[in-house]
């Protein structure tokens, strides 16, 4: 980047005109210099407090004790859920599973036509489409 330092210097010179440099080398600079020389210092008690806090907040204590703050543990189920896209992904997956089981156990008649042949005439399997097993599966 190209900082325009020249302009800054010019402005600084202008500011000194109000407190001419001839008069005891004044200008705002003497105020700023005084402020730097009189910098407020923290007292010892305060420094000690800050140091104690720094040590208390340190991730690993001096004796190699376990860290104060650790990332939240992530279980296998949590990871799986996140990999599938959160709860929405899980719900979609569950719906697809249920639909698959339904079609497998009690296929709509139309599907038999698609598969063709008597061997695969699924309508002959004779499973009650709404057996208690199915209901439990669907609701559970």
């Amino acid at each position, binding site marked *: 980047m190209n900082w325009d330092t020249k302009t800054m210097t010019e402005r600084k010179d202008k500011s000194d005109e109000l*407190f001419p440099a001839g008069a*005891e080398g004044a200008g705002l600079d*003497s105020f700023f210099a*005084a402020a730097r020389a*009189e910098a407020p210092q*923290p007292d010892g008690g305060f*420094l000690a407090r800050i140091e104690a806090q720094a040590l208390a907040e340190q991730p690993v204590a001096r004796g190699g004790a376990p860290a104060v703050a650790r990332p939240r543990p992530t279980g296998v189920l949590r990871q799986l859920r996140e990999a599938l896209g959160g709860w929405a992904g899980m719900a979609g997956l569950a719906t697809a599973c249920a639909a698959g089981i339904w079609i497998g156990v009690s296929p709509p008649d139309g599907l038999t036509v698609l598969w063709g042949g008597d061997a695969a005439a699924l309508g002959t399997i004779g499973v009650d489409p709404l057996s208690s097993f199915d209901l439990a599966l669907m609701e559970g």
Partner: protein
Amino acid sequence: MRDLAGIARSDGWDMPFEAMSAVADEDLLAAYAAGDATAARTLTQRLTPRVFGHAMRMLGGDRAEAEDVAQEALLRLWRAAPGWRMGEAKVTTWLYRVTANLCIDRIRRRRSGPDLDSVPEPADETPSAAMGMQQQARAEALQEALDQLPDRQRQAVILRHIEGLANPEIAEIMDIGPRAVESLVARGKKALETALIGRRDELGYEDDD
């Protein structure tokens, strides 16, 4: 960084100042995050005066409030240490920003809420000689004039002329462009001149040798 930890452990806290001062803040912060207690102490000694001083100036010399702000800003630094990204922002740049934001929040709250302790106690005064008193008077007059500035102007002037930072760093701290920094500093200085010009006699410009 590992060298630092080794040196620190073998020499203890009394290690030569030059040895510690050669280590960058960022490396010390990494050592801190790795559990080096010496790094914690060195960072405390090195950063607390800067953070506290900046808070004092932003808050108009209120020591108790400046201590609160400094403690909060440093607490945030300790907590940010484990996730600190090396090479992204300077530690001091980050701290100046956090400190100033905390100060401005407090100033705004102070203005909007009931004013419990309207006039902050002046800073401790230990004048030793006439020269010292004059310097102190000037520093106090400047602080009084700074207190009258809008927050952002005050922040820019303090960072530029008291903390001695360069414009690009101030721009980063204040999250504005360098031109805007220049404008804030120029306006702030103009207002300071207006406020201070009437006090020249009082501040000993006639008596200087």
